[in-house]
């Protein structure tokens, strides 16, 4: 069971309190009717599925209920950081530096 830091509660808590919510920074078009089928397909279905640091969303569903973002290494399952939804995407170089 992973340990996850909720940036809103500022506590590190077991995975059982959280729900994974897919890749982060996948943006929904502001005016969906104006985008092509391909753009909509990418929004619906295409994910980076990276091997390594992965920007992803979690929801502290059995806690504060907030959605937040995280960077997790999908090879080791280790979290590099978590941050509030809407906060800018942290550069990986900064995170590697933290390790």
């Amino acid at each position, binding site marked *: *069971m992973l340990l996850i830091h909720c940036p809103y509660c500022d506590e590190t808590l077991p*995975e059982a309190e959280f729900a994974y919510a897919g890749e982060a920074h996948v943006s929904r078009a502001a005016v969906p009717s104006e985008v092509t089928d391909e753009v909509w397909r990418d929004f619906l*279905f295409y*994910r980076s*599925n990276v091997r390594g640091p992965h920007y*992803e969303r979690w929801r502290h569903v059995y806690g504060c209920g907030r959605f937040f973002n995280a960077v*997790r290494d999908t*090879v080791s399952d280790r979290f590099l950081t978590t941050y509030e939804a809407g906060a800018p995407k942290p550069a990986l170089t900064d995170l590697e530096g933290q390790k």
Partner: protein
Amino acid sequence: MTRFSAFALVKNALTGQKGWEAQWPDSQPKQEYDVVIVGAGGHGLGAAYYLAKEHGITNVAVVEKGWLGGGNTGRNTTIIRSNYLYDESARLYDHALDLWEGLSQELNYNVMFSRRGVLMLAHNVHDVQSFQRHVHANRLNGVDNKWLTPWEAKQFCPILNIDQDARYPVLGAALQRRAGTARHDAVAWGYARGAAARGVDIIQNCPVTAIRRDASGRVAGVETGRGFIRAKKVAVSAAGHTSVVMDSAGVRLPLESFPLQALVSEPVKPCMPCVVMSNAVHAYMSQSDKGELVIGSGTDQYTSYSQRGGLPLIEHTLAAICEIFPTVTRMRMLRKWGGTVDVTPDRSAILGKTPVPGLYVNCGWGTGGFKATPGAAHVLAWTVAKDEPHPINAPFTLERFTSGRLIDEAAAAAVAH
């Protein structure tokens, strides 16, 4: 190739086992091949076998980053069935089932395909409706699948708990008698041996780092840990690692890779004659020929390549197993392992051409890839050889995600593979 037979066994028993030769050579990469297949699992090796045997294309290499059969081929719970709902899926898996039935003889390698029957349990009214929909659709598609009452299900699998006061009572079951299990490693080895005998190079410990394209955009070959290998055609069949490989060719795929866990018990004398699947509680069990109870679990919630998986899922799976089979609580878990499964948005495979000329892909099998092995391999070989999909895999295109023409077994039935 030494032909395997009882006679050969006796002969070798009398001559100190001296007559056995390598089942496949440890090939070194040549500079160029007609076809390079990335990934030496059952699907990739099988495709090489059928390319050589049915299409006469023998200048083929199967390139594998680890050891052949070491991915999901060697990490699954070996369930084989074809009672899928949609015509497209039913045809694909039934094609595989037809091939499974003769595979040992085809390969001269006993893959131990055991038609012991797969029982899928319905635990609520919704399950019943959904499974009956399957049974009816299967019948009209010529696919064997039969609805059983709880009592009939218990006759078929005596250790089943059909107490109607259970938390998730068994309200009935769909039985595909023709379905069953096979010896997973043997499938990879049998195809490897058959392909190698027809001239295919199997190159292990050779990670593919990138797919190269020429100036026209057509595929040119693969970069590997052992240098560049030129290829006229490249087929990627790398399961959970497909995304990473295809990315290098500029082909993005709607895939996500999740950890999937499975486990076995200590071996015991036969106590379970068939395979039982319970999708409502995510637990699958059969007993191997060695006597181990083979148990499959669901996927963890997050994407991962760690092949690790968490404890809570195993706890849930074994709780479910103890509910369905209450006499097994004192049995012990011997070994648990994790695999990485590649899942598409509609949980059906992508098998066919890609936007890059000469590049083909076979991926997205999720938790259902093993059962498809001979079928997928067979139509992948066809697709590569003819540069057009076989009618069976024609619907399994990448384009369906743009049009919305999904083959969504899971949405249709809330059924895991």
